[in-house]
Protein backbone atom coordinates (compact mmCIF):
# COMPACT_ATOMS: atom_id res chain seq x y z
CA UNK A 1 0.00 0.00 0.00
CA UNK A 2 2.85 2.30 0.76
CA UNK A 3 4.59 1.99 -2.54
CA UNK A 4 1.72 1.40 -4.89
CA UNK A 5 1.23 3.69 -7.83
CA UNK A 6 -2.07 5.05 -6.60
CA UNK A 7 -0.64 6.33 -3.40
CA UNK A 8 2.42 7.83 -5.00
CA UNK A 9 0.30 9.78 -7.36
CA UNK A 10 -2.08 11.01 -4.73
CA UNK A 11 0.81 12.52 -2.84
CA UNK A 12 1.90 14.58 -5.75
CA UNK A 13 -1.62 15.79 -6.16
CA UNK A 14 -2.55 16.36 -2.60
CA UNK A 15 0.65 17.49 -1.08
CA UNK A 16 0.24 20.80 0.60
CA UNK A 17 0.95 24.18 -0.86
CA UNK A 18 4.63 24.16 -0.20
CA UNK A 19 4.96 21.47 -2.74
CA UNK A 20 4.01 24.12 -5.25
CA UNK A 21 7.57 25.24 -4.90
CA UNK A 22 8.37 22.32 -7.09
CA UNK A 23 6.82 24.17 -9.94
CA UNK A 24 4.18 22.31 -11.81
CA UNK A 25 6.58 21.19 -14.48
CA UNK A 26 8.77 19.61 -11.93
CA UNK A 27 6.09 17.63 -10.22
CA UNK A 28 4.99 16.40 -13.59
CA UNK A 29 8.52 15.22 -14.15
CA UNK A 30 8.45 13.60 -10.75
CA UNK A 31 5.29 11.82 -11.58
CA UNK A 32 6.58 10.61 -14.91
CA UNK A 33 9.74 9.33 -13.33
CA UNK A 34 7.77 7.84 -10.56
CA UNK A 35 6.07 5.51 -12.95
CA UNK A 36 9.29 4.65 -14.71
CA UNK A 37 11.22 4.01 -11.57
CA UNK A 38 8.47 2.42 -9.62
CA UNK A 39 10.39 -0.80 -9.20
CA UNK A 40 13.54 0.85 -8.10
CA UNK A 41 11.70 2.94 -5.54
CA UNK A 42 10.92 -0.03 -3.38
CA UNK A 43 14.60 -0.60 -3.06
CA UNK A 44 15.44 2.77 -1.59
CA UNK A 45 16.59 2.21 1.92
CA UNK A 46 14.91 4.61 4.28
CA UNK A 47 16.15 2.98 7.46
CA UNK A 48 18.02 5.09 9.98
CA UNK A 49 19.73 4.35 13.25
CA UNK A 50 19.30 6.43 16.37
CA UNK A 51 21.91 4.84 18.57
CA UNK A 52 20.77 1.29 19.18
CA UNK A 53 17.35 2.02 17.75
CA UNK A 54 16.78 1.03 14.16
CA UNK A 55 13.83 2.72 12.47
CA UNK A 56 12.24 1.68 9.22
CA UNK A 57 12.20 5.30 8.15
CA UNK A 58 13.21 8.62 9.69
CA UNK A 59 9.72 10.02 10.25
CA UNK A 60 8.17 10.14 13.72
CA UNK A 61 5.26 11.95 15.25
CA UNK A 62 6.04 14.74 17.72
CA UNK A 63 4.83 14.37 21.27
CA UNK A 64 1.50 15.99 22.04
CA UNK A 65 0.37 16.22 18.45
CA UNK A 66 -0.55 12.64 17.79
CA UNK A 67 -2.25 11.67 21.02
CA UNK A 68 -1.46 8.12 22.02
CA UNK A 69 -1.09 6.97 18.43
CA UNK A 70 -4.66 5.86 17.89
CA UNK A 71 -6.46 9.13 17.31
CA UNK A 72 -5.74 9.43 13.59
CA UNK A 73 -6.33 5.76 12.89
CA UNK A 74 -7.28 4.47 10.34
CA UNK A 75 -5.97 7.44 8.35
CA UNK A 76 -2.53 6.78 9.71
CA UNK A 77 -1.34 3.29 10.55
CA UNK A 78 1.27 3.91 13.25
CA UNK A 79 3.09 0.77 12.20
CA UNK A 80 4.18 2.54 9.01
CA UNK A 81 5.96 5.33 10.83
CA UNK A 82 9.57 5.43 11.91
CA UNK A 83 8.27 5.79 15.43
CA UNK A 84 5.33 7.16 17.36
CA UNK A 85 6.25 9.56 20.14
CA UNK A 86 3.25 9.70 22.41
CA UNK A 87 1.87 12.59 24.43
CA UNK A 88 4.06 13.56 27.39
CA UNK A 89 3.31 11.25 30.30
CA UNK A 90 3.71 11.95 33.97
CA UNK A 91 3.54 9.50 36.84
CA UNK A 92 0.03 10.52 37.81
CA UNK A 93 -2.66 11.74 35.41
CA UNK A 94 -2.75 15.51 34.88
CA UNK A 95 -5.87 17.41 33.92
CA UNK A 96 -3.94 20.20 32.24
CA UNK A 97 -4.53 23.93 32.03
CA UNK A 98 -7.88 25.69 31.90
CA UNK A 99 -9.05 26.71 28.43
CA UNK A 100 -8.44 28.51 26.14
CA UNK A 101 -5.44 26.29 25.56
CA UNK A 102 -4.62 27.05 21.95
CA UNK A 103 -4.57 30.03 19.66
CA UNK A 104 -3.65 30.31 16.05
CA UNK A 105 -0.84 32.64 14.99
CA UNK A 106 0.63 33.50 11.58
CA UNK A 107 1.79 30.14 10.16
CA UNK A 108 1.84 28.75 13.66
CA UNK A 109 -0.06 28.13 16.85
CA UNK A 110 0.46 28.57 20.55
CA UNK A 111 -0.48 25.82 22.94
CA UNK A 112 -0.70 25.71 26.68
CA UNK A 113 -2.18 22.28 27.13
CA UNK A 114 -0.42 21.97 30.45
CA UNK A 115 0.78 18.45 29.81
CA UNK A 116 -2.67 16.99 30.30
CA UNK A 117 -2.24 13.23 30.17
CA UNK A 118 -3.76 10.02 31.41
CA UNK A 119 -0.74 9.06 33.50
CA UNK A 120 1.72 6.23 33.12
CA UNK A 121 -0.48 3.46 34.45
CA UNK A 122 -3.46 4.03 32.21
CA UNK A 123 -1.18 4.49 29.22
CA UNK A 124 0.41 1.11 29.77
CA UNK A 125 -2.94 -0.57 30.31
CA UNK A 126 -5.19 1.17 27.81
CA UNK A 127 -3.00 2.50 25.01
CA UNK A 128 0.19 0.51 24.69
CA UNK A 129 -1.33 -2.87 23.79
CA UNK A 130 -3.02 -1.41 20.73
CA UNK A 131 0.21 0.22 19.58
CA UNK A 132 2.06 -3.06 20.07
CA UNK A 133 -0.57 -4.80 18.10
CA UNK A 134 -0.06 -2.35 15.25
CA UNK A 135 3.68 -3.05 15.32
CA UNK A 136 4.39 0.57 16.10
CA UNK A 137 7.79 1.61 17.36
CA UNK A 138 6.80 3.50 20.48
CA UNK A 139 8.80 6.24 22.14
CA UNK A 140 7.36 7.53 25.37
CA UNK A 141 7.78 11.23 26.06
CA UNK A 142 8.09 11.73 29.80
CA UNK A 143 7.81 14.61 32.17
CA UNK A 144 8.28 15.09 35.88
CA UNK A 145 7.87 17.84 38.46
CA UNK A 146 11.25 17.14 39.93
CA UNK A 147 14.45 15.37 39.03
CA UNK A 148 13.34 12.48 41.18
CA UNK A 149 9.98 12.21 39.47
CA UNK A 150 11.63 11.94 36.05
CA UNK A 151 13.42 8.94 37.44
CA UNK A 152 10.21 7.46 38.75
CA UNK A 153 8.47 7.71 35.40
CA UNK A 154 11.46 6.10 33.71
CA UNK A 155 11.47 3.34 36.31
CA UNK A 156 7.81 2.72 35.58
CA UNK A 157 8.71 1.99 31.98
CA UNK A 158 11.56 -0.33 32.84
CA UNK A 159 11.22 -3.79 31.44
CA UNK A 160 8.03 -2.89 29.58
CA UNK A 161 8.11 -4.57 26.22
CA UNK A 162 6.73 -2.61 23.31
CA UNK A 163 8.48 0.59 24.29
CA UNK A 164 11.56 1.32 22.23
CA UNK A 165 12.76 4.49 23.80
CA UNK A 166 12.19 7.36 26.17
CA UNK A 167 12.10 11.00 25.20
CA UNK A 168 12.70 13.31 28.12
CA UNK A 169 10.84 16.61 27.98
CA UNK A 170 12.98 19.05 29.95
CA UNK A 171 11.22 22.15 28.71
CA UNK A 172 8.24 22.38 31.01
CA UNK A 173 7.62 25.75 32.56
CA UNK A 174 6.64 25.14 36.20
CA UNK A 175 9.13 23.10 38.10
CA UNK A 176 11.14 22.78 41.28
CA UNK A 177 14.21 24.81 40.71
CA UNK A 178 13.07 28.39 41.03
CA UNK A 179 10.52 28.43 38.23
CA UNK A 180 13.28 28.15 35.68
CA UNK A 181 12.57 25.50 33.13
CA UNK A 182 14.87 22.50 33.48
CA UNK A 183 15.92 22.53 29.89
CA UNK A 184 17.41 26.02 29.91
CA UNK A 185 20.03 25.05 32.48
CA UNK A 186 22.78 22.70 31.27
CA UNK A 187 23.46 21.42 34.75
CA UNK A 188 19.87 20.54 35.59
CA UNK A 189 19.46 18.99 32.15
CA UNK A 190 22.42 16.77 32.94
CA UNK A 191 20.96 15.78 36.30
CA UNK A 192 17.60 14.88 34.81
CA UNK A 193 19.31 12.90 32.07
CA UNK A 194 21.38 10.95 34.56
CA UNK A 195 18.39 10.25 36.72
CA UNK A 196 16.41 8.87 33.81
CA UNK A 197 19.33 6.79 32.54
CA UNK A 198 19.86 5.32 35.97
CA UNK A 199 16.27 4.14 36.04
CA UNK A 200 15.93 3.00 32.48
CA UNK A 201 16.83 0.11 30.25
CA UNK A 202 15.93 1.93 27.03
CA UNK A 203 17.57 4.45 24.76
CA UNK A 204 17.11 7.90 26.29
CA UNK A 205 16.54 10.91 24.06
CA UNK A 206 16.57 14.35 25.63
CA UNK A 207 14.30 16.94 24.07
CA UNK A 208 15.82 20.40 24.17
CA UNK A 209 14.25 23.79 24.58
CA UNK A 210 15.06 26.45 21.98
CA UNK A 211 14.54 29.24 24.49
CA UNK A 212 18.18 29.51 25.45
CA UNK A 213 21.16 31.67 24.59
CA UNK A 214 23.32 28.73 23.63
CA UNK A 215 21.61 25.45 22.89
CA UNK A 216 24.98 23.80 22.29
CA UNK A 217 25.95 23.94 25.93
CA UNK A 218 22.69 22.29 26.98
CA UNK A 219 23.15 19.69 24.25
CA UNK A 220 26.68 18.94 25.40
CA UNK A 221 25.51 18.62 28.99
CA UNK A 222 22.93 16.02 27.99
CA UNK A 223 25.51 14.21 25.90
CA UNK A 224 28.03 14.13 28.71
CA UNK A 225 25.37 12.83 31.05
CA UNK A 226 24.96 9.88 28.71
CA UNK A 227 21.94 10.70 26.56
CA UNK A 228 21.58 8.41 23.54
CA UNK A 229 20.11 11.14 21.38
CA UNK A 230 18.62 14.61 21.32
CA UNK A 231 15.34 15.93 19.99
CA UNK A 232 15.61 19.53 18.82
CA UNK A 233 13.40 21.60 19.30
CA UNK A 234 10.49 21.96 21.65
CA UNK A 235 8.27 25.05 21.26
CA UNK A 236 9.32 28.70 21.49
CA UNK A 237 7.57 30.65 24.23
CA UNK A 238 5.05 33.16 23.00
CA UNK A 239 1.92 35.07 23.82
CA UNK A 240 -1.12 36.57 22.14
CA UNK A 241 -3.43 39.25 23.51
CA UNK A 242 -7.13 39.72 22.95
CA UNK A 243 -7.30 43.45 22.18
CA UNK A 244 -11.03 43.60 22.74
CA UNK A 245 -10.96 42.20 26.26
CA UNK A 246 -7.34 43.14 26.98
CA UNK A 247 -6.50 39.75 28.39
CA UNK A 248 -4.10 37.08 27.19
CA UNK A 249 -5.75 34.77 24.67
CA UNK A 250 -4.43 31.75 26.53
CA UNK A 251 -5.69 31.23 30.06
CA UNK A 252 -2.11 30.31 30.93
CA UNK A 253 -0.85 33.66 29.52
CA UNK A 254 2.12 32.12 27.75
CA UNK A 255 2.20 29.18 25.41
CA UNK A 256 4.49 27.25 23.14
CA UNK A 257 4.80 28.35 19.54
CA UNK A 258 4.90 25.56 16.96
CA UNK A 259 4.29 25.11 13.27
CA UNK A 260 5.92 26.37 10.06
CA UNK A 261 6.55 29.80 11.61
CA UNK A 262 9.35 28.36 13.75
CA UNK A 263 10.95 26.15 11.11
CA UNK A 264 13.92 28.43 10.31
CA UNK A 265 14.70 28.77 14.01
CA UNK A 266 14.40 25.02 14.57
CA UNK A 267 16.62 24.23 11.61
CA UNK A 268 19.32 26.54 12.85
CA UNK A 269 19.24 25.02 16.33
CA UNK A 270 19.43 21.53 14.86
CA UNK A 271 22.40 22.58 12.75
CA UNK A 272 24.10 24.06 15.81
CA UNK A 273 23.51 20.97 17.93
CA UNK A 274 24.66 18.61 15.20
CA UNK A 275 27.94 20.53 15.09
CA UNK A 276 28.29 20.39 18.84
CA UNK A 277 27.66 16.75 19.75
CA UNK A 278 28.38 13.25 18.52
CA UNK A 279 25.11 11.58 19.49
CA UNK A 280 22.23 11.41 17.00
CA UNK A 281 19.92 14.38 16.68
CA UNK A 282 16.24 14.21 15.82
CA UNK A 283 15.07 17.40 14.15
CA UNK A 284 11.66 18.97 14.49
CA UNK A 285 9.85 22.26 14.40
CA UNK A 286 7.49 23.28 11.63
CA UNK A 287 8.01 20.34 9.32
CA UNK A 288 5.01 20.08 7.01
CA UNK A 289 6.19 18.21 3.93
CA UNK A 290 9.09 16.12 2.72
CA UNK A 291 10.97 19.16 1.50
CA UNK A 292 10.96 20.58 5.01
CA UNK A 293 12.02 17.20 6.40
CA UNK A 294 14.89 17.10 3.91
CA UNK A 295 16.24 20.40 5.19
CA UNK A 296 16.64 18.87 8.64
CA UNK A 297 18.20 15.64 7.36
CA UNK A 298 20.64 17.56 5.16
CA UNK A 299 21.51 19.72 8.17
CA UNK A 300 22.47 16.53 9.99
CA UNK A 301 19.37 15.29 11.80
CA UNK A 302 19.16 11.48 11.65
CA UNK A 303 15.39 11.54 11.90
CA UNK A 304 12.58 14.06 12.06
CA UNK A 305 9.38 14.52 13.98
CA UNK A 306 6.17 15.96 12.64
CA UNK A 307 3.99 17.90 15.05
CA UNK A 308 1.59 20.68 14.17
CA UNK A 309 1.43 19.46 10.57
CA UNK A 310 -0.67 16.52 11.75
CA UNK A 311 -3.42 19.04 12.46
CA UNK A 312 -3.16 20.57 9.02
CA UNK A 313 -3.06 17.19 7.35
CA UNK A 314 -3.49 13.96 9.30
CA UNK A 315 -1.47 11.97 6.77
CA UNK A 316 1.45 14.42 6.81
CA UNK A 317 3.83 11.76 8.18
CA UNK A 318 2.95 9.18 5.52
CA UNK A 319 3.20 11.76 2.76
CA UNK A 320 6.62 12.79 4.01
CA UNK A 321 7.87 9.21 3.98
CA UNK A 322 6.70 8.82 0.43
CA UNK A 323 8.14 12.19 -0.55
CA UNK A 324 11.53 11.24 0.88
CA UNK A 325 11.46 8.09 -1.19
CA UNK A 326 10.73 10.03 -4.37
CA UNK A 327 13.44 12.58 -3.62
CA UNK A 328 16.05 9.88 -3.02
CA UNK A 329 15.08 8.24 -6.25
CA UNK A 330 15.25 11.54 -8.10
CA UNK A 331 18.65 12.32 -6.69
CA UNK A 332 20.00 8.82 -7.07
CA UNK A 333 20.41 8.27 -3.36
CA UNK A 334 20.11 4.59 -2.49
CA UNK A 335 20.13 4.94 1.28
CA UNK A 336 18.73 7.93 3.09
CA UNK A 337 21.55 7.68 5.61
CA UNK A 338 23.85 8.84 2.81
CA UNK A 339 21.95 12.10 2.70
CA UNK A 340 22.23 12.95 6.37
CA UNK A 341 24.50 15.89 7.11
CA UNK A 342 25.39 16.53 3.47
CA UNK A 343 25.03 20.28 3.81
CA UNK A 344 27.86 22.12 2.11
CA UNK A 345 28.97 25.27 3.83
CA UNK A 346 31.68 27.58 2.55
Amino acid at each position, binding site marked *: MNSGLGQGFSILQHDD*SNSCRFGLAQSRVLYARFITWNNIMDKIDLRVRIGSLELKNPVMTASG*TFGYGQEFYPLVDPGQLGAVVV*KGLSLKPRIGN*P*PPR*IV*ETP*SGMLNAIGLANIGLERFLKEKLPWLENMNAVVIVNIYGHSVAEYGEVAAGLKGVAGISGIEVNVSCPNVECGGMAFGTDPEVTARVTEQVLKNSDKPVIVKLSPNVTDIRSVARAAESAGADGLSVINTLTGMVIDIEKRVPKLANLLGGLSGPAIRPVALHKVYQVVQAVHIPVIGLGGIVNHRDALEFLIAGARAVQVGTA*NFMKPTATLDIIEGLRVYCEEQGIARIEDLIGTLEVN
Partner: protein
Amino acid sequence: MIDQYASVRFNEKVAQETFLMGLESQEIANKAEPGHFVMIRVSEGTDPLLRRPFSICSVEGENLFLILYRIVGQGTLIMSKAGKGERLSVLGPLGRGFEMPQSEEVPILVAGGVGIAPIIFLAQRLGSHKALLMAGFRTSDEIVDKKVCGLLDYQISIATDDGTAGHLGFVTDLLEDHVDSNKKETPSVFACGPTPMLKKVAALTQSRGIPCQVSLESLMACGVGACQGCAVQAASAEKQAYFHVCEDGPVFYSKSIAWECLA
Protein backbone atom coordinates in the same frame (compact mmCIF):
# COMPACT_ATOMS: atom_id res chain seq x y z
CA MET B 1 -13.06 9.36 9.68
CA ILE B 2 -12.46 10.40 6.09
CA ASP B 3 -9.75 12.77 4.87
CA GLN B 4 -10.30 13.81 1.31
CA TYR B 5 -10.58 16.62 -1.15
CA ALA B 6 -14.25 17.33 -1.65
CA SER B 7 -15.53 19.28 -4.61
CA VAL B 8 -17.63 22.36 -3.97
CA ARG B 9 -20.93 21.87 -5.77
CA PHE B 10 -22.30 25.23 -4.69
CA ASN B 11 -21.43 28.00 -2.29
CA GLU B 12 -24.18 30.56 -2.03
CA LYS B 13 -25.01 33.49 0.13
CA VAL B 14 -28.26 32.64 1.89
CA ALA B 15 -28.48 35.43 4.44
CA GLN B 16 -26.44 38.36 5.64
CA GLU B 17 -22.82 37.14 5.71
CA THR B 18 -24.13 33.60 5.78
CA PHE B 19 -23.27 31.01 3.15
CA LEU B 20 -24.47 27.54 2.34
CA MET B 21 -21.87 25.27 0.83
CA GLY B 22 -22.50 21.89 -0.77
CA LEU B 23 -19.53 19.53 -0.76
CA GLU B 24 -19.35 16.28 -2.66
CA SER B 25 -18.31 13.27 -0.65
CA GLN B 26 -20.14 10.02 -0.71
CA GLU B 27 -18.26 8.71 2.31
CA ILE B 28 -18.96 11.69 4.52
CA ALA B 29 -22.55 12.05 3.34
CA ASN B 30 -23.05 8.41 4.18
CA LYS B 31 -21.70 8.47 7.68
CA ALA B 32 -22.92 11.85 8.85
CA GLU B 33 -25.33 12.07 11.75
CA PRO B 34 -26.88 15.23 13.23
CA GLY B 35 -24.31 16.94 15.43
CA HIS B 36 -21.31 15.65 13.53
CA PHE B 37 -18.85 18.13 12.15
CA VAL B 38 -16.07 18.37 9.58
CA MET B 39 -12.71 20.13 9.69
CA ILE B 40 -12.03 22.11 6.54
CA ARG B 41 -8.69 23.38 5.38
CA VAL B 42 -9.45 26.76 3.88
CA SER B 43 -6.09 27.49 2.33
CA GLU B 44 -3.31 25.43 0.85
CA GLY B 45 -0.81 27.84 2.40
CA THR B 46 0.14 28.11 6.05
CA ASP B 47 -1.93 31.17 6.89
CA PRO B 48 -4.46 30.40 8.20
CA LEU B 49 -2.77 27.28 9.46
CA LEU B 50 -5.46 25.25 11.14
CA ARG B 51 -8.55 23.64 9.77
CA ARG B 52 -11.89 25.19 10.63
CA PRO B 53 -14.70 23.13 12.20
CA PHE B 54 -18.21 23.25 10.75
CA SER B 55 -21.30 21.30 11.64
CA ILE B 56 -22.87 19.24 8.92
CA CYS B 57 -26.23 20.91 8.38
CA SER B 58 -27.71 18.53 5.89
CA VAL B 59 -27.11 15.57 3.63
CA GLU B 60 -28.62 15.49 0.17
CA GLY B 61 -28.78 12.30 -1.79
CA GLU B 62 -25.92 9.87 -1.74
CA ASN B 63 -23.15 12.19 -2.43
CA LEU B 64 -23.54 15.64 -0.97
CA PHE B 65 -23.29 17.17 2.46
CA LEU B 66 -23.97 20.79 3.32
CA ILE B 67 -22.52 23.27 5.71
CA LEU B 68 -23.99 26.60 6.68
CA TYR B 69 -21.45 29.14 7.79
CA ARG B 70 -21.05 32.74 8.71
CA ILE B 71 -18.15 34.95 7.73
CA VAL B 72 -16.51 35.93 11.00
CA GLY B 73 -12.83 36.04 10.10
CA GLN B 74 -10.06 35.25 7.71
CA GLY B 75 -10.85 31.56 7.21
CA THR B 76 -14.55 31.91 6.55
CA LEU B 77 -13.86 34.89 4.27
CA ILE B 78 -11.58 32.73 2.14
CA MET B 79 -14.17 29.95 2.13
CA SER B 80 -16.85 32.30 0.92
CA LYS B 81 -14.82 32.85 -2.23
CA ALA B 82 -14.56 29.18 -3.15
CA GLY B 83 -16.15 28.57 -6.51
CA LYS B 84 -17.99 25.59 -7.91
CA GLY B 85 -15.60 22.76 -8.61
CA GLU B 86 -12.94 23.96 -6.20
CA ARG B 87 -11.62 21.14 -4.07
CA LEU B 88 -11.33 21.62 -0.33
CA SER B 89 -9.56 19.30 2.05
CA VAL B 90 -12.19 17.95 4.42
CA LEU B 91 -11.79 15.72 7.45
CA GLY B 92 -14.89 14.12 8.90
CA PRO B 93 -17.42 13.26 9.99
CA LEU B 94 -16.16 13.92 13.48
CA GLY B 95 -17.47 14.07 17.01
CA ARG B 96 -20.40 12.69 18.94
CA GLY B 97 -23.75 13.81 17.62
CA PHE B 98 -27.15 14.26 19.22
CA GLU B 99 -28.82 11.38 20.98
CA MET B 100 -32.29 10.91 19.58
CA PRO B 101 -35.18 11.78 21.88
CA GLN B 102 -37.25 9.10 23.56
CA SER B 103 -40.48 8.36 21.78
CA GLU B 104 -42.63 10.05 24.45
CA GLU B 105 -40.58 13.23 24.40
CA VAL B 106 -41.41 16.36 22.43
CA PRO B 107 -38.14 17.52 20.92
CA ILE B 108 -37.73 21.27 21.10
CA LEU B 109 -34.97 22.52 18.84
CA VAL B 110 -33.48 25.86 19.78
CA ALA B 111 -31.05 27.69 17.52
CA GLY B 112 -29.19 30.97 17.79
CA GLY B 113 -27.79 32.54 14.63
CA VAL B 114 -25.68 30.23 12.51
CA GLY B 115 -25.92 27.76 15.38
CA ILE B 116 -28.93 26.62 13.43
CA ALA B 117 -26.59 24.51 11.29
CA PRO B 118 -26.59 21.24 13.28
CA ILE B 119 -30.16 21.90 14.33
CA ILE B 120 -31.29 21.86 10.71
CA PHE B 121 -29.87 18.38 10.23
CA LEU B 122 -31.49 17.18 13.43
CA ALA B 123 -34.82 18.76 12.48
CA GLN B 124 -34.73 17.04 9.11
CA ARG B 125 -34.17 13.72 10.80
CA LEU B 126 -36.84 14.20 13.45
CA GLY B 127 -39.53 15.53 11.13
CA SER B 128 -41.94 18.35 11.79
CA HIS B 129 -44.72 16.14 13.03
CA LYS B 130 -42.57 15.49 16.02
CA ALA B 131 -40.26 18.39 16.66
CA LEU B 132 -40.67 22.08 17.35
CA LEU B 133 -38.13 24.54 16.07
CA MET B 134 -37.34 27.99 17.45
CA ALA B 135 -34.61 30.19 16.09
CA GLY B 136 -33.18 33.49 17.16
CA PHE B 137 -31.28 35.94 14.98
CA ARG B 138 -29.83 39.36 15.51
CA THR B 139 -31.91 40.83 12.75
CA SER B 140 -34.22 39.74 9.98
CA ASP B 141 -31.46 39.93 7.35
CA GLU B 142 -29.70 37.08 9.07
CA ILE B 143 -32.62 34.70 8.93
CA VAL B 144 -31.93 31.66 6.83
CA ASP B 145 -34.97 30.80 4.80
CA LYS B 146 -36.90 27.59 5.50
CA LYS B 147 -36.57 26.62 1.88
CA VAL B 148 -32.82 26.87 2.06
CA CYS B 149 -32.83 24.73 5.19
CA GLY B 150 -34.91 22.00 3.65
CA LEU B 151 -37.42 22.58 6.45
CA LEU B 152 -40.44 23.72 4.46
CA ASP B 153 -42.81 21.65 6.54
CA TYR B 154 -41.71 23.28 9.77
CA GLN B 155 -43.48 26.09 11.56
CA ILE B 156 -40.38 27.91 12.84
CA SER B 157 -40.80 30.35 15.72
CA ILE B 158 -38.52 33.29 15.17
CA ALA B 159 -37.08 35.84 17.54
CA THR B 160 -34.85 38.76 16.59
CA ASP B 161 -32.79 40.95 18.86
CA ASP B 162 -34.05 44.05 17.08
CA GLY B 163 -37.61 42.93 16.47
CA THR B 164 -37.31 43.15 12.68
CA ALA B 165 -38.95 39.74 12.48
CA GLY B 166 -40.89 37.53 14.87
CA HIS B 167 -40.63 38.07 18.58
CA LEU B 168 -38.62 41.09 19.71
CA GLY B 169 -36.14 39.53 22.06
CA PHE B 170 -34.35 36.28 22.55
CA VAL B 171 -35.14 32.81 21.37
CA THR B 172 -34.87 31.74 25.01
CA ASP B 173 -37.98 33.81 25.69
CA LEU B 174 -39.81 31.63 23.19
CA LEU B 175 -38.48 28.52 24.81
CA GLU B 176 -39.43 29.64 28.29
CA ASP B 177 -42.90 30.66 27.13
CA HIS B 178 -43.43 27.35 25.44
CA VAL B 179 -42.34 25.04 28.21
CA ASP B 180 -44.14 27.05 30.85
CA SER B 181 -47.39 27.06 28.93
CA ASN B 182 -47.19 23.40 27.90
CA LYS B 183 -46.49 21.82 31.22
CA LYS B 184 -48.13 18.59 30.27
CA GLU B 185 -45.62 17.89 27.53
CA THR B 186 -42.43 15.93 28.20
CA PRO B 187 -40.04 18.16 26.38
CA SER B 188 -36.44 17.41 25.44
CA VAL B 189 -34.34 20.35 24.34
CA PHE B 190 -31.64 20.41 21.65
CA ALA B 191 -29.76 23.65 21.32
CA CYS B 192 -26.92 25.28 19.44
CA GLY B 193 -25.91 28.93 19.37
CA PRO B 194 -23.74 31.50 21.06
CA THR B 195 -22.55 30.71 24.56
CA PRO B 196 -24.71 33.28 26.38
CA MET B 197 -27.77 31.77 24.75
CA LEU B 198 -26.69 28.25 25.63
CA LYS B 199 -26.09 29.27 29.20
CA LYS B 200 -29.61 30.57 29.40
CA VAL B 201 -31.02 27.43 27.80
CA ALA B 202 -29.02 25.31 30.22
CA ALA B 203 -30.24 27.24 33.24
CA LEU B 204 -33.82 27.26 32.02
CA THR B 205 -33.96 23.53 31.33
CA GLN B 206 -32.01 22.58 34.40
CA SER B 207 -34.32 24.48 36.72
CA ARG B 208 -37.29 22.70 35.19
CA GLY B 209 -35.68 19.27 35.03
CA ILE B 210 -35.90 19.16 31.25
CA PRO B 211 -33.23 17.07 29.51
CA CYS B 212 -31.12 19.24 27.26
CA GLN B 213 -28.40 18.53 24.74
CA VAL B 214 -26.23 21.35 23.46
CA SER B 215 -23.72 21.52 20.64
CA LEU B 216 -20.69 23.44 21.86
CA GLU B 217 -17.96 25.32 20.04
CA SER B 218 -14.34 25.61 20.94
CA LEU B 219 -11.08 26.44 19.27
CA MET B 220 -9.76 23.24 17.76
CA ALA B 221 -6.48 22.14 16.31
CA CYS B 222 -6.84 18.44 15.51
CA GLY B 223 -10.55 17.70 15.75
CA VAL B 224 -9.91 14.09 16.72
CA GLY B 225 -8.79 14.07 20.36
CA ALA B 226 -5.06 14.19 19.71
CA CYS B 227 -4.11 17.69 20.85
CA GLN B 228 -6.34 18.30 23.88
CA GLY B 229 -6.71 21.90 22.77
CA CYS B 230 -10.50 22.00 22.80
CA ALA B 231 -11.08 21.44 26.50
CA VAL B 232 -14.23 22.61 28.27
CA GLN B 233 -14.64 22.26 31.96
CA ALA B 234 -16.94 19.47 33.09
CA ALA B 235 -19.52 19.95 35.82
CA SER B 236 -18.17 18.87 39.16
CA ALA B 237 -20.42 15.82 39.17
CA GLU B 238 -18.54 14.39 36.20
CA LYS B 239 -15.74 11.90 36.50
CA GLN B 240 -13.31 14.00 34.51
CA ALA B 241 -12.28 17.62 34.88
CA TYR B 242 -12.30 18.50 31.21
CA PHE B 243 -14.15 17.28 28.18
CA HIS B 244 -12.68 17.55 24.72
CA VAL B 245 -15.27 19.14 22.52
CA CYS B 246 -14.07 17.33 19.41
CA GLU B 247 -14.17 13.85 20.85
CA ASP B 248 -16.52 13.88 23.85
CA GLY B 249 -18.79 16.33 22.01
CA PRO B 250 -19.51 18.65 20.34
CA VAL B 251 -22.90 17.57 21.68
CA PHE B 252 -23.16 17.31 25.46
CA TYR B 253 -25.92 16.99 27.97
CA SER B 254 -26.03 20.48 29.32
CA LYS B 255 -25.92 19.32 32.91
CA SER B 256 -22.47 17.80 32.42
CA ILE B 257 -20.89 21.17 31.56
CA ALA B 258 -19.51 23.68 34.08
CA TRP B 259 -21.31 26.61 32.52
CA GLU B 260 -19.87 29.11 34.96
CA CYS B 261 -16.44 28.49 33.39
CA LEU B 262 -17.51 29.24 29.84
CA ALA B 263 -16.71 32.70 28.50
